[in-house]
């Protein structure tokens, strides 16, 4: 009976879609309780299912995995850092070889950031003016400038399927409201400059980035301004900093309420599993974070029962897989095709000693994140997403009293009570 009801509800949904020059967004399911959505995003290098987690695949994070290993995790859209590609191989080489897809041997979709945030976070001496982001070259100390126009030019050379506008990013907890407003308004002006400078709107999608810190009115104003500029997709930026999670949820919920239904919504820089599922419930579709790959280098495995540190002595003689019932190449049963037969004992043996342990944990962690979003999507399509949320939190915490209050509150706001029996 329950299954019949599910099928009826699922089939009641009529797919709707919207196309821009280089992107089609097809909404294929909506949760009847929360704001969660399931959709298909068609990009120049193929289709991806939303909600989606995008691993960060340049330099310091995924570099240990080959493109075919990344492909093997099921990843079809990953993030590249413009800052790193601009340094190596550099714009000239990218132009000569025809972009980052060819340079990296990656035939699926790429999303690039603007390069600005990397600079602000990597190079502490960056300084933002109306013209762009100024900083001193780490090489010889000479002054450099990244403008919206130059960011577009670089991302055009990279050839990413989704490119991000250069924005004026502040930490959300920045105390100066006037500076926050200036940053928000400047980001809108820079979006106009990015749109004007973007050379290939027919084959690359430029996403705007909503700014405004934790000030919900400022966020609303930014949403209105950005939405009016009709970019093919919309990002919510400036989060993932030091803000309280309640504030984070309020910002996401405030923005998704104002955003057009038939455009993808990308919450930048978040990656903890609870953050992902709560954000999906609040109506977000896309996420990226270096955490799953970075934490792998500390010997941490992401599992449905939380993060397990494989360096702990308790795993030294544990011959089980990293996570039971995980389908990743490390964990799937040894007799299956492509199974590697990796045990917790072997990861323990080499965690923080050989890079191979980090590579294997990266394979597992990326698989976990992609699979989590895939399962969330299946639940949305079957209209059983509230039950999925309850199962998810029950897997993480043995006792309901340990559930994080921010998640309980945020989900209550969209009609799901995690604590009800």
């Amino acid at each position, binding site marked *: 009976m329950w299954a019949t009801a599910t099928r009826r509800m699922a089939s009641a949904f009529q797919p709707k879609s919207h196309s821009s020059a280089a992107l089609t967004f097809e909404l294929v399911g909506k949760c009847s309780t929360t704001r969660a959505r399931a959709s298909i995003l068609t990009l120049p290098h193929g289709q991806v299912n939303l909600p989606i987690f995008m691993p960060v695949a340049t330099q310091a994070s995924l*570099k240990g995995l080959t493109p075919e290993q990344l492909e093997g995790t099921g990843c079809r859209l990953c993030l590249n850092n413009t800052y790193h590609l601009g340094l190596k191989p550099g714009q000239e080489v990218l132009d000569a070889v025809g972009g980052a897809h060819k340079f990296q041997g990656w035939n699926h979709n790429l999303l690039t950031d603007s390069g600005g945030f990397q600079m602000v976070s990597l190079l502490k001496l960056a300084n933002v003016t109306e013209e762009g982001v100024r900083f001193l070259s780490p090489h010889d100390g000479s002054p450099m400038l990244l403008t919206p126009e130059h960011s577009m030019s670089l991302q055009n050379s990279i050839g990413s399927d989704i490119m991000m506008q250069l924005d004026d990013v502040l930490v959300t907890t920045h105390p100066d409201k006037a500076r926050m407003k200036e940053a928000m308004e400047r980001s809108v002006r820079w979006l106009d400059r990015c749109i004007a400078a973007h050379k290939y709107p027919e084959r690359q999608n430029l996403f705007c980035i909503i700014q405004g810190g934790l000030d919900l009115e400022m966020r609303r104003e930014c949403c209105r301004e950005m939405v009016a500029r009709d970019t093919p997709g919309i990002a919510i930026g400036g989060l*993932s900093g030091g803000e309280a999670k309640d504030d984070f949820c309020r910002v996401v919920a405030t923005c998704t309420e104002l955003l057009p239904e038939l455009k993808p919504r990308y919450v930048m820089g978040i990656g903890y599993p609870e953050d992902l599922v709560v954000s999906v419930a609040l109506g977000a579709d896309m996420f990226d974070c270096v955490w799953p790959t970075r934490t792998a280098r500390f010997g941490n495995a992401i599992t449905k029962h939380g993060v397990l540190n494989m360096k702990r002595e308790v795993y030294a003689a544990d011959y089980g897989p990293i996570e039971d019932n995980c389908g990743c190449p490390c964990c799937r049963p040894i007799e299956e095709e492509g199974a590697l037969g990796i045990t917790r004992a072997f990861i323990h043996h080499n965690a923080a000693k050989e890079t191979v342990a980090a590579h294997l944990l990266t394979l597992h962690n990326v698989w976990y994140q992609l699979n989590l979003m895939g399962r969330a999507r299946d639940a949305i399509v079957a209209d059983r997403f509230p039950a999925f949320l309850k199962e998810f939190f029950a897997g993480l915490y043995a006792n309901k009293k340990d559930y994080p209050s921010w998640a309980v509150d945020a989900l209550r706001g969209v009609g799901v009570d995690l604590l009800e029996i």
Partner: protein
Amino acid sequence: MTIDIPSQDPESSTPTAMRFEVLKNLAKDAATTASSRLGHLSLPGRRPLETPNYIGVTSRGCLPHLTPDNVTKHLQTSAAYMSLEDFIEKPQQNSARPPPIFAAPTSSKLPTPLHAFTAMPSSIATILGARRIPAVASPMGNTNKSISVFTNTGFQPLTTTDYLSAVSTLKPDISIPLADLTNSNITPNSKRALRMAERTDEWIVDWFSSPDSSATATFAPVLPVSYSMQWEYLSRLSEDYVPTSQLSGLALYDPALLPDLPAPLLSLPRLSLSAPATPHQVLQHISLGIDIFTLPFINTISDAGIALDFSFPASPNPSSSAEGILPLGTDLSSPEEMLGWTLLQIHNHSIVSQFFAGIRRVLGGEAGEEEFEKARNGFLRAYEADFPAGHAERPRARGYQYKSVGGGEPKKNKPAWGKLGPEGSEEGVETPVVPEGKEVEEKGFAENVPKE
């Protein structure tokens, strides 16, 4: 000339027969003196090894930077050297726990505990020795019944009985029994050298008298001391263990011993543990008669950020008539060419595989030995004598073999957001995943602001 060495695995009673076939001897006096040759080594269930060739050197059971799927897909290597000292540390918090590798459950896909614990693909043959290559010299010294090994938690003794028991449990395809070595560049005085030979001789007798040794193919150590010091030991090998087929091969710590090997030992495969530093030395050792090399330089070169670039025979270099000018590799800590360690390892292993394939082609040619010596001289003339110095930062967490480096530092900043795991799980030592070169130029990134 073919020798079959059948041996019986007492537990599963499946034969672990290693076969080594000499396909072509190059020197006329090959029956009496070691010299270069072409061979074929096979083990049931493993990739065959065409010789001369090299095998991978593992660290803690891994071919550094290469996950097992990458080993299967991207490496031509047929075998991997593993050292027992990489697996038998005694953790401070639980010093009584037996090394977990001994209880690793096997499966049809990973059929031995050694394969199963390390997830080394079963197509790769395993060769077990006690020490890493190169081994760290121990301040403790060896005893009549044990050698001192260096584990992740420090030096500890390894007895001959424990080593044999480890071999019988782990079931490596090939094992090298313990040798009494100093692991030092200083030549031992004749008293010490004699004792090394005597102990190694006693240990090999114990080894072969135990039924446990029949679970593996035994490559007996040949000591890095002069023939006159170890002739009795070598005679015992040829007189007692060649006729019984208990001895499957030789593991040489110094190729200089090759010309002195007694004739009955010449049909056995010859594995080098001497860690030649360059391809030039490899070529010289092939002339002397080495069949199989362990080449730790591949790992160190990759860690240093160097992409190997040489071939045998050296391709003619039209751009120059000068000699000895071709670099053996390129330092990739330059901006355009930075690759990850994984890709560097795949590349460097591939270059070395092709180098040996080239050697075998020349040796197999009509004018075999003469052609090889000509090509070897051509190689010596064409390439620089050593690898370029690398500038990439080494993997600091590789750990204990770089004693001065030690562990990493705990992270300075706590993540601002909460975490899922147990408190403190994010802290501790990070495994570096990319070589971090010196910071590179901002080529193409942002614009230089013209100075007023």
